[in-house]
């Protein structure tokens, strides 16, 4: 079974066109086919499908999708095989430059030139971008040697270049933690990870396996306040921060290094969403969507990191299953779900996706908390559902499945999603009882 297959012939009309062949695009293509769409086009600007998984060589993928722990490339391989078995047109090395509001997808590639296809449904699965230095406003000079952790990951894992010899990592996102270990294994010195917040923003297992195992220090409530060097980074100044996250400059110290990796988070790649004037959610940076992940423009769907930043490729695949199937439904003229319940973030919840739910569907509500709660926690979706969990942390997305039975009596209402300590929830319930 080949892992790359390029389309030799491009039709001018497809039922479903999918932009981006990462885990979201691959799963959407499979689901669209299973739902009955016959002409499906999957486009990616890279030379091969797989998206970011091609450079995520570590394990930790597939526990939900395959009940097996596999690496990123293996996870991608399995989905690429599924796509190729289903006779989907896969066009690689092709950049989608524009999607028009009447669903014409314009693309550009060495093999097709500039061309456009008409489509019945579009899935935007273009992934995310990394936050850069400008977005987090570090002062200082602009020497070489400052780059995002994901770019360093691509250099090391796909092309075999090392970013430097003495590295400081700013931000404790998963990519930064994974790269700390990766660089140590390649013989590079990793001098420390500096996190502005009082807790790591990456997963606990990555703190243990990528930092603790190799004795790499994690400095919490500490940040890089200055980067020095003319042509190349020579040293950074770091300082602890107070409760309001203001650097305590009198306690600052310098670290000689030649490279600074930024691991300060991802944001959905919103280029096509903006072109299409889709309604965007300021909290996620992605489009506002229904429970089948349809955006404010009928026929346009969003899934994966293009919709909101996911920590697990498995969740991405599940989301894209729904989006791909729904795109096929729309293309085939089937009736849409009701979307008659609204959901909105409440106490200690940063964002909720999707933005509406249907009383006639079983759907998944995904959200992230603002502050970690270690200990019994109540997750509440309005009056419709509550679940008790052991802990919640911002690094781990929470998902709750809600079906017609649970939602039935809430048509027309807005459900607030809360994540609160169990003790506080009991107090609230007691207070509520008193009022009655």
């Amino acid at each position, binding site marked *: 079974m080949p892992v790359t297959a390029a389309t030799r012939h491009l039709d001018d009309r497809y039922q479903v066109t999918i932009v981006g062949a990462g885990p979201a695009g691959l799963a959407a293509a499979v689901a669209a086919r299973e739902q009955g769409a016959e002409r499906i086009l999957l486009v990616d600007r890279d030379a091969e499908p797989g998206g970011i998984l091609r450079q995520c060589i570590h394990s930790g993928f597939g526990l939900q999708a395959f009940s097996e722990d596999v690496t990123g490339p293996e996870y991608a391989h399995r989905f690429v095989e599924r796509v190729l078995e289903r006779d989907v047109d896969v066009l690689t090395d092709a950049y989608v430059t524009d999607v028009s509001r009447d669903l014409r997808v314009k693309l550009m590639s060495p093999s097709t030139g500039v061309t456009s296809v008409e489509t019945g449904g579009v899935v935007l699965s273009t992934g995310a971008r990394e936050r850069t230095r400008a977005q987090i406003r570090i002062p200082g000079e602009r020497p070489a040697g400052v780059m995002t952790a994901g770019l360093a990951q691509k250099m090391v894992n796909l092309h075999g270049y090392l970013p430097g010899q003495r590295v400081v990592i700013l931000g404790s996102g998963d990519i930064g933690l994974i790269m700390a270990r990766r660089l140590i*294994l390649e013989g590079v010195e990793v001098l420390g990870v500096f996190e502005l917040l009082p807790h790591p923003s990456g997963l606990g297992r990555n703190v243990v396996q990528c930092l603790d195992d190799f004795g790499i220090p994690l400095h919490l409530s500490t940040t890089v306040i200055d980067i020095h060097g003319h042509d190349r980074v020579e040293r950074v100044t770091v300082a602890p921060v107070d409760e309001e996250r203001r650097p305590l400059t009198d306690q600052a110290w310098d670290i000689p290094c030649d490279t600074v990796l930024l691991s300060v988070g991802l944001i959905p790649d919103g280029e096509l969403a903006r072109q299409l004037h889709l309604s965007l959610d300021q909290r996620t940076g992605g489009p506002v969507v229904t429970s089948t992940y349809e955006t404010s423009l009928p026929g346009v769907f969003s899934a994966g990191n293009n919709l909101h930043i996911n920590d697990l490729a498995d969740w991405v695949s599940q989301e894209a299953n729904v989006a791909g199937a729904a795109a096929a439904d729309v293309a085939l003229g089937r009736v849409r779900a009701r979307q008659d319940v609204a959901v909105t973030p409440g106490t200690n919840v940063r964002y909720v996706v999707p933005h509406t739910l249907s009383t006639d569907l079983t759907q998944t509500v995904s959200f992230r908390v603002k502050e970690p709660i270690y200990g019994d926690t109540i997750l509440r979706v309005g009056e419709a559902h509550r679940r008790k969990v052991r*802990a919640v942390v911002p690094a781990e997305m929470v998902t709750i499945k809600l079906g017609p039975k649970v939602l039935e009596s809430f048509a027309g209402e807005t459900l607030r999603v809360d994540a609160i300590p169990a003790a506080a929830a009991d107090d609230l319930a007691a207070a509520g009882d008193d009022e009655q």
Partner: protein
Amino acid sequence: MGEHRHTATIDAGESDTFAYLCTGCPLGCRLEVDVVDGDVIEVRGFSCKKGERYGAQEHTDPRRAVSTTVWLVGGPVERLPVRAAEPVPKDAVLSLVRELHGLEVHAPVEVGQTIATDVAGTGIDVIATRAVQPKEQLPVAG
């Protein structure tokens, strides 16, 4: 990061308790492992059986999933992702990866193909995690 460190607290009686963070899944349960005379007698704090096994294993014989890359000749990119076919003793991780440093693999490659055997005396093989077509067979777009 005190809560993630492996801390030992000596009990007034005769058992020691060690704290570990279960890495079996992203939930990250906080485990406590009770040890008497070097034997694990109880693991607490897990949410599933995997965590109970992990706690005992992490105390007696810690192992890690290991991934790295080697040079790839005749492929679409310069590096081939590989992994240890089974979990590697924690102390052997660095030597296993370093032994692979100069290795070159020629396309074509299959997923799961053995790239090196008994690496760094661990008895563990290293396998490819992606497939690579021979160059002349790469499909041509257009």
